[in-house]
């Protein structure tokens, strides 16, 4: 019998440490599938973040570097500049990319580095216990905003993708949601475009994925998917931003 659905070569056959219903497993797999489809596994160098995906290199089966918290795009810049023939991407959470690493993010984008960025926005710090992230919604309860995020006290959810879209060095930005089969297929297409842009030398490309975190949203996996669809997209509208 023909197998019509097999694990991607670029993903190791191991179980992950992610919680049930977490979006990281989906995102890891989509990236691995695209890398297989583009036939670039042996050219890829990924940069893993500090956050829940800190050991992404235990799951992906290609060359990877760690980066200090927030520094993934500086590390990726160093790698890509000395090895322009390789395909270099970063995989970063909201705290990593849009709080402690905002400087690295903005300047790598502004230099127009020919890199692909996969940005997992789940509106919380997952690995450290569900604290407020730069992308936490107003009113959202986290372990450091027990009464809910207040604009007066903690400011507003940071729309870093829209900010980055203003920069001439940025060539492609799309926001997608990991909450339904059609949206997951769109996400895969966006990942492919971001990597193809790099292959073709187009320049800085970023895919922001709204990603479920049932554990720190206090929801079931299914409710978490619905929360992205019904609530999160109001603050972070889906689609091609640039």
């Amino acid at each position, binding site marked *: 019998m023909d197998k019509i659905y097999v694990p991607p070569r670029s993903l190791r056959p191991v179980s992950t440490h992610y919680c049930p219903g977490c979006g990281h497993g989906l995102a890891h797999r989509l990236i691995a599938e695209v890398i297989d489809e583009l036939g670039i596994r042996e050219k890829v160098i990924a940069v893993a973040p500090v956050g829940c995906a800190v050991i992404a290199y235990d799951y992906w089966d290609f060359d*990877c570097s760690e980066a200090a918290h927030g520094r993934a795009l500086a590390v990726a810049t*160093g790698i890509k500049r*000395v090895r322009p023939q390789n395909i270099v991407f970063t995989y970063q959470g909201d705290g990593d990319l849009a709080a402690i690493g905002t400087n690295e993010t903005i300047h790598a984008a502004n230099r127009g580095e020919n890199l692909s960025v996969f940005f997992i926005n789940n509106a919380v710090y997952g690995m450290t216990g569900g604290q407020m992230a730069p992308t936490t919604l107003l009113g959202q309860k986290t372990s450091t905003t027990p009464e809910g995020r207040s604009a007066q006290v903690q400011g507003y959810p940071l729309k870093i993708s829209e900010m980055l879209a203003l920069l001439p060095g940025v060539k492609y930005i799309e926001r997608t949601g990991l909450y339904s089969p059609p949206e997951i297929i769109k996400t895969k297409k966006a990942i492919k475009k971001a990597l193809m842009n790099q292959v073709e030398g187009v320049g800085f490309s970023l895919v922001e994925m709204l990603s479920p975190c049932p554990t720190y949203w206090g929801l079931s996996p299914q409710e978490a998917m619905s929360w992205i669809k019904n609530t999160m997209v109001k603050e972070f509208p889906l689609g091609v931003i640039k």
Partner: protein
Amino acid sequence: MKRSRKTEVGRQKILMTGNEAIAEGALAAGCTFYAGYPITPQNELIAYMSVHMQERGGVFIQAEAEVAAINMVFGASAAGARSMTSSSSPGISLKQEGISYIAGAELPAVIVNIMRGGPGLGNIAPAQSDYFQATRSGGHGDYHCLVLAPSGIQECYDLTALAFELADQYRIPVIILGDGMLGQMMEPLAIKSEVGSQKSEVRKEWALTGCQGREPNVAKSFYLKEGALEEFNLKLQKKYRQIQAKEERWEEFLVDDAKIVLVAYGSMARIAKAAVKAMRSKGKKAGLIRPISLWPFPKQAFSKFLAPGTKSRAPRPNFLVIEMSYGQMLEDVQLVVNGRAEVEFLGRSGGGIPSEKEIINKVNKIYHG
């Protein structure tokens, strides 16, 4: 500030600042990646790199921050390139995070610190106040950087080239520790043919190059499983013991019959040497130990004075440690001497530099109370 430089190999000497000689030494050693951020008094270095790195086919990036610069070096080094960053004291404080990660991921890298006055923003005068930060682990965790301290423009070039060799050999960050005086003064420099040719083609099997024909490589410093980090740290410690056994470097000057041995490094050693010569001309038996490697600290330079003596052995000399800081290298000398001889101290920092006269006065005081 593009100046035409004759950098052909040969006997010809060219006039350069220490900052430029460090950059030239790096390029001669095959450094192909530099990322830096402007800060006085090391600006000649980044400016020199901006002109000459691209000329020679390498990558120059003026980074958005010191933190980004050192993390770019992490990436470039992980991808197999000989990589360097440079800064001055406040900027080096910012780089400590990256240096710790580089040490933890066992990546080679060269970091230049042209020290200025501190703490805080301090001033831009020469100082040696970052000795502790450089020779202990300046960032978090149990690690060491190998630290080399040039005292002239030729050594800026030579030791920087050596730093790349040692960094690759031991997969360790190497710090070139200079100061604002050394960085900005000019002296003749001989470009040596052997530096370029020594450019070792170390096979970097660990480098991230894409996993064609091999298992994937990972550059990381994260060891979460129980016992894994301790095992890794013990491996690092073993490497550090090897470095301590093999890589002590120092210069001795008229120490054999000395009654007073000055101990100074970098620019400070130049002034100390002048003081030794002046004292010798007056018949005073003074000498100098100039540590070149600050970590590992050159303990062997002291051992001949401190070995258990016979009755016929001449009395042990006194040591006078002289720094542009307030007693940092002093602690390493005290640890080595361990109470077996007198150790005196003369230091100034924050813009003050102990002069030849101050040194001689201090020696006279030691002799005559």
